[in-house]
């Protein structure tokens, strides 16, 4: 399963290297959404992608941001996926 995630990780790395530096620093969280998603995919495979999407959604004009690492454990209920 892990090798299937490689293209996603590559896209994130590409974004970090070639696109993100062209934008002003903008993520309200630490680590930034891209780093978060990268870590999440490394740890939770395909689930990490959803966690990353949810993180980007949470990083909106109405949130206050803050420090938010990928959780070390997940409660696997159908609703709690990705919800911290």
């Amino acid at each position, binding site marked *: 399963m892990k090798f299937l995630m490689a293209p996603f990780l590559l896209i994130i790395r590409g974004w970090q*290297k*070639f696109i993100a*530096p*062209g*934008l*002003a*620093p*903008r*993520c*309200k*969280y*630490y680590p930034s*959404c891209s780093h978060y998603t990268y870590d999440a995919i490394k740890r939770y495979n395909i689930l990490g992608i959803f966690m990353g999407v949810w993180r*980007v959604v949470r*990083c*909106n*004009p109405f*949130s*206050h*941001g*803050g*420090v938010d690492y990928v959780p070390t454990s997940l409660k696997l209920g159908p609703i709690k996926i990705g919800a911290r």
Partner: protein
Amino acid sequence: MGILDPLYWVVSGVMVFIHRALSPVFGETSGVTWSLSIVALVILIRTLLIPLFVKQIKSQRALTALSPEMKKIQQKYKDDRQKQSEELMKLYKQHKTNPLASCFPILAQAPIFFALFTVLNGIGKNPPQARGTFTPELAEQAAAAKFLGAPISETFLGSPNTTTKIVTVFLIALMSLTTFTTQRQLMVKGMPKLDTTNNMMLQQQKILLYLFPVIFAVTGVNFPVGVLIYWSTTNLWTWGQQYYVIKRNPAPGSPAWEELQKKKAAKGLIDDVTNNGSVAVEDPEKPKGQRNQPKKKKKKNK
């Protein structure tokens, strides 16, 4: 029915509406009417995004009050970027203010851009494809409409027309120039000096500053004139918006902010420029001596 269909309706709907409104002025088949309908689309979207922008600027202004604490953090974790960012984020959260824009403004515009691209691309097909609220007649009319003599549906690569080539090159140059100046303006004047430790990122930003025009040149040759108009207008708007903010309401600690501070002092609006400046300029002694409040708060943070 595709997922983007509603967006086609919105994008084409706005275009057709503006076209109808402007037709009596410039003429129904006029290129000016159709070009302006694309420009109006940009103006509408960017106007809708202004409240977000104002919100962000307001929280940036709120940072002035926090800058002594920010300085403390930066001094304390000089050699640990990660810890430094973490503490800064904690500080923002604690004070419920966050100067960072989040990805939303970009993400909100991306689907609209793609929708416009598809709509205009459809018009560029032979025979013109009518998407969204476009009727076949309107699509044909839009396809023939000219911007500076180039049909708005033609691309650099797809057209043998010399005028189209010249106009697309002009628009791509305009896109590159506006992106370049916007980015440079921000880097030189708009950003707080706090980031000097992060040389790697600055280096990367510099490379991209010169890389973006190249990327535009490569991708832009596939874009219809109409999309290029949209993109150029967006860039101009971004530039103007940023120019206004950097002049009137710069981020605390940035070179533009220091300039404004000096100007205000010259006008007698602020009594002591060095006092205000020392918060932003590297000078760890002064804030410590003058301000007690940040010290206390920092202890709470621990």
